[in-house]
């Protein structure tokens, strides 16, 4: 028996999320007295695959097939179903990201396996099997029992610390037969931003709200994010106004993120905004209104005009980066 973890790669490379997943799987395997099998799909060099062993994978199954170049949820769910059946996996772990959310529910029906989505801790209990998951958009956490024989967990990004548990992993190259006719998804066009830190990957996020007054004032937000090696974000009114792209909107209906540091500048902190950022480890609020709800969520606050405070912050960061 093994815990199966699906590790996504980006152009043949793993990133922090992949290692979080394997570390989490290693924790689950330890609890259940089993071992970790990591599944990787696509062209990934052996040296890169071996990295998964550093976080506790005992076996790495590499599936490479031209039909998997296009992401089709039905086909991918089929691959996971086959591999998990072959390995007798009772617990399957994916990321709670675009890919995981596309695969997990299909796999669930195929295997009749209950899903604990967006888990942020190791299972609370094995009998009954109970997971800890976000609910009510971060206003509550549920202890949820999964009563099926096979369980699927999707891990919230940046919620579980990477732990090094070196293992000499064996790599198993597996070929899966997929007919071209099984791939129903046709990708007609791809637009990719390159060279920009992804909001969901960033450890530090600097975010602006209506208090920034105009899109012309975004310079210091971008500069601060760059200096700190972070990404920029914004509140909903800002993206609705077209001041910033929709992809930067953090909040209940936008992106849900959990960086180590979230700096909210000129954001009042409506419930819907907090729903997207409340899992951040540290929140800094800069706002003119001392009664703004953002200060209840923040550990550090500055009551003042963002447009005056920001340039000073930028200078202070430049000072320590010297």
């Amino acid at each position, binding site marked *: 028996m093994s815990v199966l973890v699906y590790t996504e790669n980006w152009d043949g490379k793993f990133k922090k999320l992949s290692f979080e997943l394997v570390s989490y799987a290693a924790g689950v395997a330890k609890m259940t007295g089993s071992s970790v099998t990591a599944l990787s799909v696509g062209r990934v060099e052996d040296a890169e695959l071996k990295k998964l062993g550093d976080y506790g994978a005992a076996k790495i199954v590499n599936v490479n097939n031209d039909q998997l170049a296009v992401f*089709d*949820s*039905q086909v991918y769910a089929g691959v996971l179903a086959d591999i998990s059946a072959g390995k007798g996996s009772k617990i399957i772990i994916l990321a*709670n*990201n*675009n890919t995981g*959310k*596309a695969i997990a*529910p*299909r796999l669930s*029906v*195929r295997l009749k396996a*209950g*899903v604990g*989505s*967006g888990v942020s801790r190791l299972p609370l209990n094995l009998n*009954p099997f*109970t997971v800890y998951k976000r*609910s*009510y*958009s971060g*206003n*509550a*956490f*549920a*202890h*949820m*029992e*999964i*009563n099926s024989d096979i369980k699927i967990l*999707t891990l919230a990004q940046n919620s579980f610390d990477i732990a090094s548990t070196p293992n000499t992993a064996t790599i198993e190259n597996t070929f899966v037969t997929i007919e071209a006719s099984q791939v*129903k*998804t046709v*990708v007609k066009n*791809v*637009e*990719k931003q*390159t060279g920009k830190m*992804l909001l969901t990957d960033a*450890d530090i996020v600097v975010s602006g709200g209506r208090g920034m007054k105009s899109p012309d004032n975004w310079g210091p937000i971008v500069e601060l994010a760059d200096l700190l090696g972070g990404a920029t974000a914004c509140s909903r009114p800002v993206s*609705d106004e077209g001041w910033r792209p*929709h992809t930067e909107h953090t909040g*209940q*209906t936008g992106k849900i993120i959990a960086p180590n*540091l979230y700096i909210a500048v000129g954001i009042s902190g409506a*419930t*819907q905004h907090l729903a997207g950022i409340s899992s951040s480890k*540290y929140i800094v609020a800069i706002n003119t209104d001392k009664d703004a709800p953002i200060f*209840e969520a923040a*550990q*550090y*606050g*500055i*009551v003042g005009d963002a447009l005056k*405070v920001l340039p000073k*912050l930028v*200078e*202070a*960061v430049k000072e*320590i980066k010297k």
Partner: protein
Amino acid sequence: MKILVCISNVPDTTTKIRFAPGNTSIDIAGIQWVINPWDELSLTRALELKDDAANGIKSVTVVHVGPAASEPTIRKALAIGADDAVRVNAEPRDAYYTAAQIAEVVKKEQFDIILCGIESSDYNGSIVGGMVAEFLGVPSVSSVSGIKFENGQPVMTREIDGGKETVTVPVPFVAIVQKGIAKEPRIAAMRGIMMARSKPVKLVEPVAVESLTQVLEYEKPAPRAACKYIDSENPAQLIGLLQNEAKVI
């Protein structure tokens, strides 16, 4: 073409969540129930697509799995502009159970496009849409932030890490939609509210399906430490705290 929009009934997103004694459910006293925000945006987009006659959308139906108490939410969807509704008369026990019920409705009524919001703001599962597709054995496209028609065929934009793709799949399919699908939710006009009263809501009894998950208990998020204020004239002090106290920069 016929569109089905799956709608969930959730507490208004500004609700202060309290738990009922025993912490096994929320305290529903005084809660305003609304259409789940993403489902409302799906419905809006479905109606926009129908408004353009060139797209050939015959009808927009909403389906809801819930008891009679959720009728007002269904009426609201009809008031916004859905043509008719199906209510599966059952407590939505978990995602698997709910998806199985919706799939049964689709099997009987034959829809071409099934729209599901990415998640419900209560359980935050993000799984019902994909499950419906798998129960039906039809394609699903996730993270859909746009849907339009080109030459009579639905074309979708799906978000990927750091970009987007334009994709098509053959009908019938399930689109799991998110931010961007429609700009603002459509609001019910008085005429719509009047018309909604006479629109058909078909009542369907549930099929026997087990549930695979169950919430045993809820807890509140851990309280955060009180905010430490820093003088606005001296932001450098903040940087010092982030560096030496929080150790995050």
